[in-house]
């Protein structure tokens, strides 16, 4: 490949021609967006398991979701909760984009998803050990009792035969490829809370490199299990505002006390511009930049000075050839933990200098909760909606200004204002960062 060919390749433009999502605020984009700009909260009491004895009793669950989706029987063993959401979101996105993958050659269509391994629920293990515990089984074996069935037989009913495959993070992408007959490149990235941002960055590259002309990208997640609720609580990362679930997620507010775990899926259809034009597709926005970095700091904490996160915002700006003046709105990672919000604010100031105070910054997580591997995809979709509706979603529950977080967080009310270019941030536990730049298509 000659240099000129590389440069020519870099000129490929990546546009967004469809999207779909299943979120705690609604099972379609239209519903989620409506609730989001009305400042509604998708957070409530946990219904997926009995959380009455847990210190954290709230989560952002997907509600009234139809699990009887049209799936071939033989795929059922592979499809977990989050994959179900992903299928619905992908279906909505493809319909939205007007692409019928069953009726065309799909070698030029790829998939790039961010996902997490399916969470184990306590109920799996309750049945796994049935009447005997591992320890007891071991003791009996050591005593020479050979009648005790090996674990794999004891658990025959609880672990699905193909659970190893089903729980794998890459399965959602594989299922989509099968279900929608997609034969181009398939990628999965697992970067915890930044997974889908990384997947979107990868999708952009697949198109820019000419490996695909259309890519289904985004992510899905459902970590709402006993283990994750208890585990994240033990890390002191979750809000314990059980009495006021709707008030629990309060990014950048002085009284924030942690994030609210959620679930959902978001899928976008990215398309190479000339391909989209040829088929007269409606173009909702253009992806113009992607940046990725790592804090190299701590596996739990974000650095207070915003180190790492600023690198990734700068990398995205550089990739897009944009300056800080071009950014009209920042869709923040804004988890509502003490450290993230402080660190993100510092990082935005590092990058935007004085302009940091002029750019509106809001957190969709104040309403959606933290949807982990699907967060970035859903937030990017909301950013695309923001560009199309010229309406910035608010940060709700912003009541007590924090002197350390002193930017314009679009408190409590949506804001009508011209928006052309948006920076969307995602920062993962452990220090993986990814930023995506989306622009009005012109």
């Amino acid at each position, binding site marked *: 490949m000659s240099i000129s060919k590389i440069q020519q390749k870099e000129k490929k433009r990546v546009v967004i021609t469809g999207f779909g999502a299943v979120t705690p605020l609604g099972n379609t984009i239209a519903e989620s967006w409506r609730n989001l700009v009305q400042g509604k909260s998708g957070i409530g009491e946990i219904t997926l398991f009995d959380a*009455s004895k847990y210190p954290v009793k709230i989560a952002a669950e997907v509600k009234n979701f139809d699990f009887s989706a049209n799936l071939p029987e033989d795929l059922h063993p592979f499809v977990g909760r989050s994959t179900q959401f992903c299928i619905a979101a992908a279906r909505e996105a493809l319909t939205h984009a007007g692409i019928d993958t069953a009726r065309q050659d799909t070698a030029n269509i790829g998939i790039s998803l961010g996902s*997490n391994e399916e*969470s184990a629920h306590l109920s799996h293990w309750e049945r796994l050990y049935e009447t005997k515990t591992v320890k007891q089984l*071991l003791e009996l074996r050591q005593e020479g009792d050979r009648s005790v069935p090996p*674990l794999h037989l004891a658990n025959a009913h609880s672990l699905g035969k193909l659970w190893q495959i089903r729980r794998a993070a890459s399965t959602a992408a594989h299922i989509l490829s099968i279900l929608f007959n997609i034969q181009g490149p398939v990628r999965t990235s697992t970067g915890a809370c930044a997974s889908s941002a990384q997947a979107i960055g990868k999708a952009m590259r697949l198109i820019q490199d000419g490996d695909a002309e259309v890519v289904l990208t985004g992510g899905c997640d459902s970590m709402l299990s006993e283990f994750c609720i*208890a585990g994240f609580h033990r890390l002191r990362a979750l809000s314990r505002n059980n009495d006021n679930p709707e008030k629990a997620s309060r990014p950048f507010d002085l009284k924030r006390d942690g994030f609210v775990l959620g679930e959902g899926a978001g899928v976008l259809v990215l398309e190479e511009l000339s391909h989209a034009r040829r088929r007269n597709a409606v173009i909702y926005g253009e992806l113009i930049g992607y940046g990725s970095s790592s804090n190299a700091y701590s596996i739990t904490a974000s650095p207070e000075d915003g180190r790492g996160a600023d690198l990734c915002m700068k990398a995205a700006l550089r990739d897009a050839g944009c300056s800080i003046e071009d950014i009209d709105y920042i869709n923040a990672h804004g988890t509502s933990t003490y450290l993230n919000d402080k660190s993100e604010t510092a990082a935005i100031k590092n990058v935007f200098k004085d302009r940091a105070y002029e750019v509106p910054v809001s957190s969709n997580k104040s309403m959606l909760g933290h949807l982990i591997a699907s967060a970035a995809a859903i937030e990017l979709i909301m950013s695309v909606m923001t560009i199309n509706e010229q309406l910035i979603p608010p940060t709700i529950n912003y009541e007590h200004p924090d002197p350390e977080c002193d930017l314009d967080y679009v408190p409590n009310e949506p804001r009508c204002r011209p928006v052309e270019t948006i920076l969307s941030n995602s920062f993962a536990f452990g220090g993986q960062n990814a930023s995506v730049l989306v622009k009005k298509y012109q």
Partner: protein
Amino acid sequence: MRRVVITGLGALTPIGNTLEELWCALVDCRSAIAPLCLPTAPLLPAGRAGQIHSFTPAVFNIPQKSLKVMNKTIQYALAASTRAVADAALAGSGYLPHEIGLYLGVNGIQYTAEELFLASYEAGGKDMRRYMDPEHQTVGEPIVFRDPDAAVHPLWPLSVLANMALCHIAIHHNIQGRNLAFSSIDASGMLAIGEAFAAIRRGELDIILAGGSYGLNTLDLLSLDRCGVLAHGDAVSIPFDRRRSGCVAGEGAALMVLEERERARKRGARIYAEVAGYCSWCDATVEPFAKSVVPESHLPLCRCIKGALQDAGCEPDAISLVYADGKGTVHNDRQETRAYEEIFNARCTTLPFATATPLTGYMFSAHGAFSALAAVLCIIHSMVPPLDNGVVLDEGCSLLFPKNTLKKQVTYVMANTFGFSGEHATLILQRHE
């Protein structure tokens, strides 16, 4: 066109923790497959595995207190990364932290059976007799954590999240650049290296640390067995042998430093080999995926191999060695063989093939990275290691597995991962002149 070279290698495997040990074991066919050593071993149908027994975290400067947030996958990854970074002489190389990328293939969240047991045990109120009593065998009864704080270790989420190995490496070596974690079961490690290669070639970065890691654990052995792919009891790892009965699990990590050639040259780095081509491919057909994890066709792997050959701009005839996936299951090996027969035709009888699974077991998310690393060693030493003595191939199978170490110049090596889940990857490595 930007060219990508390999300038550092690091591995931690059942057959050796240094490149020298590893190479000696490969050419001597010294197998590390031994009776499975896990607390739950008596309960597991798989009787043997390739495990790492001689690993001292302190040797790799991993602080004792960090170990509690590191499962084995993380520890191995970190150790191998330390070796690779040292091998590439990255310290003082002039790269700024944000210029260095990190691509890692890992298995996803790992729950150990012990952890889950503990949680279930605590959940039952620490008195499981109730469940043992024949009169109280009401299994469906809902159980909750009486004391979630006691049931789940506060650092537990940190030891299971799929991106943690990557974050530990980033922290340990102060790597701040672009990063991606791959967890596509067994293809993960090779995907990481292949995607790193593609990113450097396209000009996104000049240097990336890439590879894979895998720590053996009860839960994987259980659930893999449920898929019907593991060998039982005393069965050994004999890929491509007609007596094979399944995959024997292994564990380990392999990482390498990939670098843009001119930049590597400028800093005077030692260049082991060049990455010439890469392709990954995913089956998009319902049948093989849904019925089981048994591949029913060799065509997806063929497509992947052809893609990589095209990417490298070389003909099948140019390949001087194939590092096969060699899972050892009846079906995988058969389809893999068919793919080679289709690609190489009559050359299969003269083109040497290699696989390390008889020695190490199958290292899942690390395996593709390890195959690539072993392939580099073959290039360096101009040698092809033999397959563990006396393989009796399938009837009609004509692949050439050397019985003795073969001395020959290795110009192009192809390494393949033929994934259980339908995700495949092929790398083509080239001798660097």
